[in-house]
């Protein structure tokens, strides 16, 4: 799945920046420092926008393209922020054959975002994920820690209503 680059303006704080700099300082002499620093940076910011990756490139003295290459190789790295509610649609084999594609499309339509994107108000993000091991409930989505199974696309609007503040 190609990653979506967020167009939401970067809202990093000086505290987050200080934390990232400490992480970079901790790893600067490690061989292959890019990956652990990206992991910890994602913990700090929730995702890895160009501003964060540039700080990492500058701090570790590696090309920005190399940092970006690593961040797009591993599926756990996100280039788009997560919303207050992160909706993961399982695209594992069982869910997929049971129609998770339709569920994803419906979510996309309702929220006005594509997979791997976040709504402008920061409320919802949408992720297409690998098998989460709940195949008996296929197709499955999770909204933060809540699990919804045996879904059809027409059930989506009611589910979303619960989370719209």
């Amino acid at each position, binding site marked *: 799945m*190609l*990653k979506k*680059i967020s167009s939401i303006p970067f809202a990093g704080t000086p505290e987050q920046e200080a934390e990232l700099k400490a992480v970079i300082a901790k790893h600067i002499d490690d061989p292959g420092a890019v990956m652990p620093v990206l992991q910890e940076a994602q913990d700090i910011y929730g995702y890895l926008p*160009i501003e964060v*990756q*540039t700080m990492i*490139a*500058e701090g570790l003295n*590696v*090309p*920005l*393209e*190399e*940092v*970006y*290459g690593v961040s*797009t*190789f*591993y*599926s756990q790295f996100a280039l788009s922020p997560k919303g207050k509610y992160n909706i993961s649609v399982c695209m594992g084999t069982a869910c997929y054959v049971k129609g998770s594609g339709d569920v994803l499309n419906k979510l996309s339509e309702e929220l006005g975002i594509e997979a791997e994107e976040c709504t402008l108000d920061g409320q919802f993000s949408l992720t297409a994920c690998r098998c989460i091991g709940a195949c008996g409930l296929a197709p499955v989505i999770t909204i933060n820690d809540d699990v919804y199974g045996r879904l059809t696309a027409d059930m989506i609007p009611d589910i979303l209503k619960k989370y719209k503040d």
Partner: protein
Amino acid sequence: MEMLNIKINGMPFSVEKNTTILEACQQFGIKIPTLCYLKDINEIGACRMCLCEVKGARSLVAACVYPIDREGTEIFTNTPQIQKSRKTTLELIVSNHDKKCLSCPRSNNCELQKLCVEYGVDETKFCGEETKYDVDESTLHLVRNNNKCILCRRCSAACKDQYVGVIGANNRGFDTEIGCAFNKDLSEVACVACGQCTAVCPTGALIERDDTAKVFEAIADETKTVIVHTAPSIRATLGECFDMPIGTNVTGKMVAALRRLGFDKVFDTNFAADLTIMEEGTEFLDRVKNGGTLPMITSCSPGWIKFCEHYYPELIPNLSTCKSPQQMQGAMIKSYYAEKMGIDPKDMVVVAVMPCVAKKFEIKRDDQGHNGLDDNDIVITTRELAKMIKAVGLQFTELPDEQFDPIMGIGSGAGTIFGATGGVMEAALRTVADVLTGEDLEHIDYTDVRGMDDIKEATYDVAGMQVKVAVTSGLKNAAKLLDKVKSGEADYQFIEVMCCPGGCINGGGQPIVDGHTRNFVDVKGLRAAALYDDDKNLEYRKSHKNPEIKAIYDEYLGEPGSHKAHELLHTSYVKRPKY
């Protein structure tokens, strides 16, 4: 040195321990096909073309990265299983390759195409999904067409080896593509335009922007006086495009070809190299005497200049303010020559033949040109010139040897060696030493600054003055040297930096050398030797002895560093963003 007795295809050989299979086979006259392997910079065993069999190994092994470390190793390089594997690899590569070979600028010079022919590949064997990419034509200097990319990563390795690293592999699996961070266009990142990626690309995925049509158009326009000038190193490399041995000096045939292409005048950029020495030597002495910023760093190489602006902007005051020889030549053609001949410079088209793709960028830099006109109008690379010569059917090797046109057709030996790393420094020292001693010194070979070492240092006693110099080429080496300058660890007065490893003879616009030749032949050394031979045999070997240089100062510029010289021959630089 531990030697091992091995067998290759049943024949006994003896090799040094830990030699790779690829190198061992090369030593014994067997060429193993490769696509991704580039010695020292891209040893990743990724393309699977070099697969060989090692008796007892579980599967076929990648010869380029397999070290022979056991006595009695038995290697097979060409079994039916190996042939089938290589053929399948090629068929899989071409299954997702834009197979428009007829219109591809690398046709007949494409490593993929050549191997496909050798292995009898069926390009329709696997018909699966094909990825379609937009072509990146955002820069003046090159075109990136990922539809022809085979993901060998030679370009990204070359880019990283230049300490630029703006292109690399993004995404994963079938989505993998070579690109810039955050999918930016090349024009939006800190690419220095060196073109080394185009020189190492095995296919047509990375090519210089082709400006030959503009040249043909200008030549056909009878209202224009079309003037061409050729950089020092072109004479040492152009012959390769016509199957002449690497390192053949083809000055005379090149001039003859240019004249037959229809250029009105054929000048030698060596003339402007000499002019550069006059200005740069004067600037150096002025900086030494008057407490200017030292070390002074040469400014002939536009890739290097752009690198400095993006990555070391704090050293901009150290850059010589001299324009490059290309720009000086253009500036003099459109002023001095135009006035002397009574031609309106607006009716001139000046074409520069360069070893370099960054020169295409340089002509549009700010603070170049004069009276609203660019110094040069079109830049073509050595490769594009060869293409033009072939297009009009000139039998290059049969051409007579002809001479450049006056009054910008004489270049000294000092100008010629600009094309190799160390050449600008040596040329400058020849002139500076004469100026300081007031003599016509006979010892003019500054061999310490020649050759392909990463960083060359020397201290010369010139008329009682100690001149400490350093010479480097390739931006990785330049970065190391500049870090020393920045930290105060180095106390040079004069530094020569060339962007491309080995200098212009290995420029990004030079004839393509396939991976195998690049890995096993001293291409840079052979090309440089042609220039040093040329220098030895020329009538004038010092820039200030060039009679046309004397004339231009007498008649037009006054003296080096004069007001007029500054107006026409000097420039300025700008800080550019790194990200």
